[in-house]
């Protein structure tokens, strides 16, 4: 930092233009550099976040400025069975999908951590579901879940003869719910696997060698070396995953739009249906705001629940 103060006067002598000098004045430069990012985030993120919370306390509709109505929107939501349904399904969806993604993703990461030919190609291919637009792969799932021409039904009925009738994937509540969860897990596995693989590769092989010399089994090595060493990265990836699964919108909107009989509404799709499609901005905002406590809780739970384990093991994970 001392270099800065020394060089500024020197520069001032050599470059007389006041504009150049202004841009070399550190506080000004800092403000100029931060202005675009902070400006964009303030106008399109912080302000809407506050506005959303305000809207939740008004009865605004599209085209009409609302007035403050206090907790009315929230009181209404508490009596609204559709909202409770959405809360229920959002929690179920997040819990099962997160569990599935992490169990399968961790397994895939462990598999990819082995040595075999064409490893980098395989790693690249595996990330495809995460790269392709979610809505477009969701459409493919919609077609796979077609009541009449589902390829899964075809396999089970006509090829394997395990069933006699087609599976009605999206026609009744529980099958539809699980079909959506399966699609979400499918989409989430690559991200989890590739992130965890990066974590696995940072674990020093000498730990495994030491454990093997001491006669540890493969399970013990996983349980007492791999798993604890992965805790910090698991905590971060899981926090992200929970946030974005709980607030998921695309998959459900593309495949079922909340049907059949509103049974697969997530809070985000319900907020869209009420707020944008139905025009009840205030109520939609209230539904969106009602996601925040769940998110904060889930974040704290996953982050501190997992990170505390790391502290117990000590900080020596280098």
């Amino acid at each position: 930092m001392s270099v800065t103060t020394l060089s500024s006067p020197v520069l001032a002598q050599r470059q007389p233009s006041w504009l150049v000098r202004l841009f070399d004045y550190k506080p000004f430069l800092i403000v100029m550099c931060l202005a675009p990012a902070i400006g964009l985030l303030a106008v399109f993120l912080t302000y809407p976040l506050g506005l959303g919370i305000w809207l939740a306390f008004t009865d605004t509709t599209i085209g009409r400025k609302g007035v403050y109505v206090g907790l009315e929107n929230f009181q209404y939501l508490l009596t609204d069975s559709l909202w409770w349904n959405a809360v229920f399904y959002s929690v179920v969806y997040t819990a099962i999908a997160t569990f599935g993604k992490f169990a399968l993703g961790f397994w895939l990461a462990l598999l990819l951590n082995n040595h075999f030919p064409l490893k980098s190609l395989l790693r690249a291919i595996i990330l495809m579901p995460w790269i392709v637009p979610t809505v477009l792969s969701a459409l493919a799932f919609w077609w796979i879940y077609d009541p009449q021409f589902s390829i899964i039904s075809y396999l089970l009925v006509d090829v394997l003869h395990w069933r006699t009738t087609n599976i009605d994937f999206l026609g009744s509540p529980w099958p539809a719910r699980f079909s959506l969860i399966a699609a979400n897990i499918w989409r989430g596995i690559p991200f989890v696997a590739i992130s965890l693989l990066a974590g696995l590769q940072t674990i020093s092989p000498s730990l495994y060698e030491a454990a093997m010399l001491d006669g540890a089994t493969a399970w013990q090595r996983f349980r007492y070396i791999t798993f604890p060493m992965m805790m910090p990265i698991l905590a971060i990836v899981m926090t992200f995953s929970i946030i974005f699964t709980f607030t998921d919108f695309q998959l459900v909107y593309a495949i079922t739009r909340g049907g059949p009989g509103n049974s697969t509404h997530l809070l985000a799709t319900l907020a869209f249906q009420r707020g944008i499609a139905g025009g009840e901005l205030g109520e939609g905002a209230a539904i969106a705001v009602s996601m925040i406590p769940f998110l904060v809780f889930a974040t704290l739970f996953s982050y501190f629940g997992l990170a505390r384990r790391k502290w117990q093991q000590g900080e020596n994970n280098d």
Partner: protein
Amino acid sequence: MTDIVAQPATADAKAAPDTMAWDSGLRRLMMIYLPLGCFVLILLFPFYWMAITSFKPNAELMNYKEHNPFWISSPTLAHIKHLLFDTAYPRWLWTTMLVAIGSTTLSLIASTLAAYAIERLRFRGSAYVGLGIYLAYLVPPSILFIPLATVVVQFGLFDSPLALILVYPTFLVPFCTWLLIGYFKSIPYELEECALVDGATRLQILRRITLPLAVPGLISAGIFSFTLSWNEFIYALAFIQSGANKTVPVAILTELVTGDVYQWGALMAGSLLGSLPVAIFYSLFVDYYMSSLTGAVKE
């Protein structure tokens, strides 16, 4: 970016315990190749299904008794032709491309400057600004789209692709800034000190020294932003009303899904064409994707 360089070294080092652990070839086959094969099969099947449906004539699509559904007997380009000539698909592709490039450029400029200020200009509280930008990444679009819709209307940008170009940086800037901070950290500060001693201004240093060295980081951030904005859905759905201005993901879902009989051939062809640009982009820059994804997590 350091990961790319570092990987071969760790990979070699890891070989030792593996060979010790796996003794028989059969066990290796059962424990590694078989599950891996299943994973790849399941992860790729929807794409195969999407691709094969796009080239099937309608007669084959709806008749599994006479045609094996896993293969095409008489491939056709009818669905793609229908898409390109009977719908506004080229227009949607163009809009999506425009929005993705516009928002990527905007976010790259904003986040490069911000990351440079936070990491290199080091002022009091720079760590908090960095944390604040990082926290912005944790605010999901599902919470923001309703109030943002009113903001977009206030600005008179409703139904305009410009709204998307301005709104997408809300989730691109935090990610890119985060990635670039990590990248700038890896560039030796001594280089900048030398230039300062030689009398370069801060902006000259940024332009002539830091940015050229940070090109791989910029590419990572750029391709990631491009992919994320190409894939974005909820804002595009909420802010764009007229058919012509829609982005590909929204347009396929709202314009092509009509009536009770779904045109699966056209829908899948649309999905395939809409996925291709990012897939090609991805295949060209695979290493950058990997390093930014893993780098972002490690940070």
